[in-house]
């Protein structure tokens, strides 16, 4: 407006006033009504989140409180804590729960130990070009099918597989199928989900902080322990939530490379399918959910979630 007023007439290119279209009127209306704008923006995702997420979880909880008619195989909607009690007291469920949590924790530890140096190299050492190549290399396995990758590991770990061939000259051998194979394969599968948050966390650490630590007399180990690790701790926790929760729910990998071992996911699968006991399956499925909530509560206590 002021420009028009001071511009000498005829000396400037004239800009036509905006045309009064329906779209423009709509935009004007929306820009004046903040609540309506928010409602339109959020209603679809909120509906999705509410229905698929919360309702499904509640349905799971309710189902676990029902029972199955042993004669007809139909679900009978009589309220009972029987399934919950079975899951909490049955020695099978306790053993499998401990085993599953153990596997998930080991996978998480293996992933963090592998991801830290890779992410550090990507964020702080590699040239920009190398950095891009590595990000793609880390992402690439995610584009391949989960089943293909699991079966690839089955062949790697088999008696005639490449791992035996590689280790034989050094007197080693493949662990074969079992829990170690499950941990190896799951670590491989979830590694990108752990590398990426840690990489992103390290990217946000200015180089000058590392230089300052070194400048003040901090050797490499002190710098990593006192400066880098505390700053990227939230990123490590974020990565660990992925590997831990994905491992807790997995049942396919353990079927393919785990030998006769069962994890919680297998128990859920058997009860939904062969045993046709949906309420018991729901009760078992509640175990990893409770564990994850426990895990989140624990890491929250460390303050790691505040900076996510």
């Amino acid at each position, binding site marked *: 407006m002021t420009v028009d007023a001071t511009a000498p007439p005829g000396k400037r290119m004239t800009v036509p006033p905006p045309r009064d279209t329906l779209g423009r009127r709509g935009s004007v209306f929306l820009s004046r009504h903040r609540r309506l704008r928010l409602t339109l923006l959020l209603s679809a995702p909120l509906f999705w989140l509410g229905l698929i997420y919360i309702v499904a979880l509640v349905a799971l909880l309710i189902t676990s409180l029902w029972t199955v008619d042993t004669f007809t195989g139909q679900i009978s909607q009589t309220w009972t804590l029987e399934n919950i009690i079975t899951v909490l007291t049955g020695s099978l469920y306790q053993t499998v729960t401990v085993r599953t949590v153990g596997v998930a924790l080991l996978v998480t530890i293996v992933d963090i130990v592998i991801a830290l140096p890779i992410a550090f190299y990507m964020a702080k050492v590699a040239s920009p070009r190398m950095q891009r190549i590595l990000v793609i290399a880390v992402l690439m396995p995610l584009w391949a099918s989960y089943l293909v990758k699991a079966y690839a590991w089955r062949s790697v770990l088999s008696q005639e597989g490449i791992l035996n061939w590689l280790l034989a000259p050094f007197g080693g051998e493949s662990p074969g199928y079992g829990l170690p194979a499950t941990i190896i394969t799951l670590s491989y599968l979830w590694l990108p989900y752990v590398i990426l948050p840690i990489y992103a966390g390290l990217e946000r650490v*200015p180089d000058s902080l590392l*230089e*300052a*630590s070194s400048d*003040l*007399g*901090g050797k490499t180990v002190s710098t990593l322990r006192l400066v880098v690790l505390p700053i990227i701790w939230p990123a490590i926790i974020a990565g660990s939530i992925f590997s831990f929760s994905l491992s807790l729910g997995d049942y396919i990998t353990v079927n393919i490379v785990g030998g006769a071992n069962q994890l919680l996911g297998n128990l859920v699968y058997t009860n939904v399918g062969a045993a046709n006991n949906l309420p018991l399956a729901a009760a078992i499925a509640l175990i990893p959910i409770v564990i994850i909530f426990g895990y989140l509560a624990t890491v929250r206590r460390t303050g790691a979630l505040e900076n996510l």
Partner: protein
Amino acid sequence: MSAEYPAIRLTGLTKVFGTATAVDHVDLDIAEGEFFSMLGPSGSGKTTVLRLIAGFEQPTSGTISLFGQDVTQRAPFDRDVNTVFQDYALFPHMSVLENVAYGLRVRGVSKRDRLARAREALDTVRLGGFGDRKPSQLSGGQRQRVALARATVVRPKALLLDEPLGALDLKLREQMQVELKELQRDLGITFIFVTHDQEEALTLSDRIAVFNDGRIEQLGTPAEIYDRPVSPFVAAFVGTSNVFDDEVSHRLFGHGGLHSLRPEKISIGSEASPPAADRTATGTLAEVIYVGSSTRLIVDLDAGKRITVLEQNDAHRVGEDQRGSRVSVGWNDVDVVDLEPAITHQ
């Protein structure tokens, strides 16, 4: 020891990044207890020299000695120098006190001792009550002082400052300049101060090295640099200068070569009553710019050169309405500086 060796000696220091030569055969001695500034435009190599001294970069060739000891191959944590970073580089997850105590912590000083010494260091920068805060809760000037305390608490033999006042506003910057000068006097150690602000360098330094294109173009005291610039680059970069080329010099000074003349060394009068000076020249007043304490006058000389004249404002100052009028300018021979024709890099 200090009598025999300079605090810092750079010999043939060169740093090449890919195809670009950032630092080109720099030789330099910096004395103990000196406030030394490295002044230059961005990309002139001054920050790279600082980073080479700190050990963050390895030189392509040349050596760096601290008090006679060759430290070229040593890691930053093995050098007795500390850096104050441009972005302060305070550790965000530590309190102010922990930040200051960090250098003592990694050196294995006991917790009680290091916290006591860190508190002392915070007191000297007048941040005594701020130890428990996080760096994010401090203002820019306070962060700056924490960075100073953190770098000096470990008693370095030299303090390297990389444009430490760059992020502060003018008032704060002037205040911090005074504090820096006082701190340097109290500690008695060498300060190496990198800046692109010529006024800052002139105000603070014992000596200044003016950097251009990876080389030291001129080395001297602030007065030498300002009054006797050796090249057109120094004359133009440090303060404002009127630089006269060969042709105009012939007409104005009677002999050829490159010359410079500071705007405040030129006096001005009307064509009818020229100012009393060794030499005078006539011209037309092209522009009058009021800058508070003084007035900047742009004059088109008949000799074919546009010059700047700085006049202190007094009762009868030149008004804007006199634009276009004929004037006479005068200067004394002693104020004319012979410049070397552009310093040639082999």
